[in-house]
């Protein structure tokens, strides 16, 4: 089998497995997997910037929230239909990430981390400040009857699962295409050796900006999807925690691999889920697992598979 054939069968295979799972799983697990798929979409967005381009952002929650509120505010306050609101959220996510990129990419390294962190804090404070629109801390719940897409009621479990799968599969296949396309390969070159890439004639700044916009827009799509499928918003989603989570998911699953974000999200979601059954100090168990993985598999799950088993893994 050629590399392309192997790659396609693996990634389409995952989507097929996720599709089949809904017939096997009970409603509780089905809900979990739907949530994991939406959060994994967020991680996929994060991975484009961190895993493939080598830029560590500590403020991606702002993009997630740009999508979340970009969809929820038009729907809640202006009764915009969900289809249009979703497109608005994507446009807001893209525009906002372009703006953030233009400003934050004037810095590099640690300064870039701090600047993105600060921007995200500003977004968090704006969400609290604009409580009239956002209801601040407690957020608001999207009215059930408005949560329909092309006539499909997204509060229904099966429809919710299907919508989450479509969102996730789109993001997954898009990044799979991207990292094998010329532009994606330049992003990898920027990550590997910026100086060299520039001396091959590539505009480093432009490629980093492209990465921020793609990453921010996918994260915004995940935020919009989350609000639409699970119905709630809230300033919690803008806190530092939601900027750190995608970093952890991507590190666990394997930075710079297409499957990594999903594997990491899945692993950590269930790790915390099971640890919470065992003890109240469930973050202690999660933390220990994280330390162990970092020590013994520093390239993450998919990264370790690529290192020892499938070198062709994109």
């Amino acid at each position, binding site marked *: 089998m050629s590399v392309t054939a192997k790659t396609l069968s693996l990634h389409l295979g995952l989507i097929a497995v996720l599709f089949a799972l809904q017939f096997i799983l009970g409603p509780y697990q089905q809900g979990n997997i739907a949530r994991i798929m939406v959060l994994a979409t967020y991680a996929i967005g994060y991975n484009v910037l961190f895993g493939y381009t080598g830029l560590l952002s500590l403020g991606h929650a702002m993009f997630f929230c740009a999508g979340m509120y970009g969809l929820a505010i038009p729907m809640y306050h202006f009764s915009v239909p969900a289809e249009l609101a979703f497109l608005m959220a994507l446009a807001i996510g893209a525009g906002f990430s372009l703006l953030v990129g233009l400003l934050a990419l004037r810095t590099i390294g640690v300064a870039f981390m701090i600047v993105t962190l600060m921007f995200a804090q500003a977004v968090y404070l704006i969400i609290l400040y604009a409580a009239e629109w956002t209801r601040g801390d407690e957020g608001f719940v999207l009215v059930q009857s408005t949560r329909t897409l092309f006539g499909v009621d997204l509060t229904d479990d099966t429809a919710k699962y299907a919508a989450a799968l479509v969102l996730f599969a789109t993001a997954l296949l898009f990044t799979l295409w991207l990292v094998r396309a010329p532009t994606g*390969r330049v992003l990898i*070159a920027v990550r590997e*050796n910026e100086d*060299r*890439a*520039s001396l*091959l*004639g590539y*505009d480093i700044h432009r490629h980093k900006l492209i990465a921020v916009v793609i990453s921010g827009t996918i994260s915004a799509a995940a935020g919009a999807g989350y609000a639409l499928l699970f119905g709630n918003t809230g300033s919690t989603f803008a806190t530092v925690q939601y900027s750190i989570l995608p970093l952890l998911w991507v590190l666990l699953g394997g930075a710079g691999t297409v499957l990594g974000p999903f594997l990491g999200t899945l692993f950590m979601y269930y790790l915390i889920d099971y640890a919470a059954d065992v003890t109240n100090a469930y973050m202690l168990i999660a933390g220990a697992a994280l330390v162990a993985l970092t020590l013994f598999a520093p390239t993450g799950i998919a990264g370790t598979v690529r290192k020892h088993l499938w070198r062709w893994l994109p």
Partner: protein
Amino acid sequence: MLLQTHGLSRYFAGITANEDVDFDLQKGEIRALIGPNGAGKTTFTSMVIGRLAPSKGSIIFEGQDITHLPAHERVRLGMAYTFQITSVFANLSVFENVALAARRKMRAKDATLTAHVTELLEKVGLAGRGEDLASDLSYGHQRLLEIAMGLASAPKLLILDEPTQGLAEAEIAAFKSLVRSLVPETTVLLIEHNMSVVMELADTITVLNAGQTLAFGTPSEVQANAAVQSAYLGGSEDA
């Protein structure tokens, strides 16, 4: 005239790395840039390619003032540079290293690109190594990979910073014939310590010493130059 510099100077916190370097490079020639360690050779070429901003002076490439252009745009105009300290994409395959260099210019179909990259790898003597990681190559082979990457964009000016360092004798011989085969389509600026390579390849030589041009001429003129001998060659052609 392909490349000119006028009064090119660079100071590092009071240390003069280059002072008033006037430099002319004709199309199609092989020019060697030599000088003792610390003469300012790498500083000079770094300014030419755009990795380092000059303190003063100007750089003209094909009649266009490029003094303030960023490096990637100079590369787009037809310059290529191979690093003195090997700077390949260590975690990517040898093939992808060259493909990255070739892809910008030829938005070609995969098959054409593959053929082009394969040909380049053959040309520099890395045939069959495409699937290996660049970091798995020996140091000398990484130097050859650098050269393949430099050639991939079919540059008008190829700047080679100490390309034969770490190469075996046989590889140096192959390198010489490779460079000879590039002219006159490509103009070559060669920084080199290996005097036999310089004397055999170069049409003309510029000698830098303490950041300034000390001498210029054909290999035999430079060898005969008393100032050069005292500064650098020490009277022997096999330095």
